[in-house]
């Protein structure tokens, strides 16, 4: 098998020796089958035994070897080194983001676990089901959703690449919300949809939909979709948060004219907070950029109204 020499640039840090993290370069012969984890093992066994990283199953199941590879969180055991070299010319390896570095590629996952815990990530048994034939009945539809969410291996990749978490430490992150939704979908759970209450305080509306958590999840859990579903539930339960008002105002605007009315959306979502933007609004108006609050309906609006009616009927069913 053909081999080639690849450059591995690794962020090293030993708190007992180093004042601050530093990059160290290693050269490793790789073939097309080698994973980044294989290469790290090679470095550790043949070049520098002090290189520290977590690993266990080597099969993408345990989630231990999550780390930043060329800027994005991935499992080292599932990432082929050659793909990274072809894409970036080198393999840059760093510990996960949004967590402090303990040593070399080992990140302190305490905050991640704390956020998971905030979501009560266990089944709260509905005792009324004990002894009943209903106790284990799960529809296929529900199983498809909760089964996919239960695939989460808690590797922390989504938490690491969550851009909202970088700037907003109150946001509990994608894995925590996905785990909450997993139990919302579980018919055996006593809390069920009631778990949605209180999520606004821990960041339900802080997710930006950047889709990194979808792209980087090694188990295809798609936390962003779970967050959207939780928002749907929170909206249906008449959650009065600003996020829910935004959805309501947006949908109402499209129901009236077929198009988004930026002015009414802004006013209805922001309410008195629009006063914070008075200067900007005046500047935009002066440049002819402030959208008109009076929207003209699109042609064939009757079709749009029919679809709104049909969707409402489907929802009620």
């Amino acid at each position, binding site marked *: 098998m053909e081999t080639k020499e690849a450059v591995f640039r690794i962020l090293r840090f030993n708190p007992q020796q180093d004042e601050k993290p530093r990059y160290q370069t290693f050269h490793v012969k790789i073939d097309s089958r080698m994973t980044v984890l294989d290469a790290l093992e090679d470095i550790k066994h043949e070049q520098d035994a002090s290189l520290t990283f977590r690993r266990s199953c080597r099969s993408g199941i345990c989630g231990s070897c999550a780390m930043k590879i*060329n*800027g994005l969180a991935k499992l080292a055991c599932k990432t082929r080194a050659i793909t990274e070299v072809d*894409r*970036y010319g080198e393999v840059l390896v760093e510990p996960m983001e949004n967590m402090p570095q303990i040593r070399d590629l080992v990140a302190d996952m305490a905050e991640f676990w704390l956020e998971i815990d905030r979501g009560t990530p266990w089944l709260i048994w509905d005792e009324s089901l004990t002894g009943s034939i209903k106790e284990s009945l799960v529809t296929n539809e529900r199983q498809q959703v909760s089964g996919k969410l239960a695939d989460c291996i808690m590797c922390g990749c989504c938490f690491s690449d969550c*851009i*909202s978490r970088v*700037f*907003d430490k109150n946001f509990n992150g994608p894995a925590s919300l996905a785990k909450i939704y997993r139990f919302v979908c579980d018919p055996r759970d006593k809390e069920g949809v009631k778990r949605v209450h209180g999520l606004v305080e821990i960041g339900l*509306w*802080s*997710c*930006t*939909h*950047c*889709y*990194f958590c*979808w*792209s980087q999840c090694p188990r295809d859990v*798609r936390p962003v979709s779970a967050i*959207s579903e939780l*928002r*749907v539930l929170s*909206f249906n339960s008449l959650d009065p948060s*600003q*996020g829910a008002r*935004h*959805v*309501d105002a*947006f*949908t109402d*605007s*499209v129901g009236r004219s*077929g*198009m*988004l*009315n*930026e002015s009414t959306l*802004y006013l209805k*979502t922001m309410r008195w907070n629009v006063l*914070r933007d008075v200067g*900007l609004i005046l500047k*935009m108006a002066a*440049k*002819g*950029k*402030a*959208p*008109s609050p009076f929207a003209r309906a*699109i*042609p*064939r609006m009757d*079709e*749009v109204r*029919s*679809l709104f009616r*049909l*969707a*409402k009927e*489907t*929802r009620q069913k």
Partner: protein
Amino acid sequence: MKYAYYPGCVAKSSAHELYNSTALVAEKLGIELAELTAASCCGAGVINEGDPFLNVVLNARTFAMAESMDLDILTICSTCQGVMRQLKWQLDNSPTLAAKTNEALAKINMKYNGKVKIKHLLWALIEDYGLSKLEQQVVKPLKGLKVAPFYGCYILRPAEALQFEDHEKPVSLEQLITVLGGEPAHYEGATECCGFPILFVQRETAFEMGGNYLNNAKQKGAGFMVTPCPLCHISLDAYQAKSSKKIHTNINLPVMHLSQMVGLAVGVEPKKLGFSKHMVSMEKVLRVL
């Protein structure tokens, strides 16, 4: 080249300069735009969070309209592009959802067949028009200033639904900038979120996000930024003063819409491209170019 043109709500409202500049660029390049004037809003990933099925049927109606014209859809908004492409992907991979959707569409005498393609102007210029042909149309190369490409989220992820380019290391904007005679600036944050989706809910976080990427681009020597998304443009241009304040830095980095940048290079008169509507002055850019 002819498309069923879906400009999106923002290009027809607060970002009219994007709508106008796209028309001028299309005329210059000989691209015919048959506007879907009766198409509704795509939902921007927001309607989805109140009523997912409503979001599906509204977009399926738009797809069916384009199919009845036997044309592919052209968007100039990454958000419209991302929402529509993702829904099409869901419909094409779920016979149950497609059947349920067509049941609803039948009530308004429409049908989604699955043959329509959805393309952002950026992709259409690369795939359909061709970069070498575009290069031949350049009369005013973007020389003298580095250009910071800002992709944002919806034109890149989720990659399996969008099926265009490597979301980890995209090159389309850099390729476009290069054929237009410019030099792309490489900076951290080009593929991150601009902050717009949480602008109404978590303002301060949104300002910090946008401000950081603008500042990163400026630090790497960018003379201006370009974005394929009018929502990113609002966050990066209209709210730039607030972002500057938030990160305690005077950023002052002009931000162009994609079609404005193409328009400049292919010789559309700058005055007609609507730069006067921007919050951050484009004057110093136009002086250099």
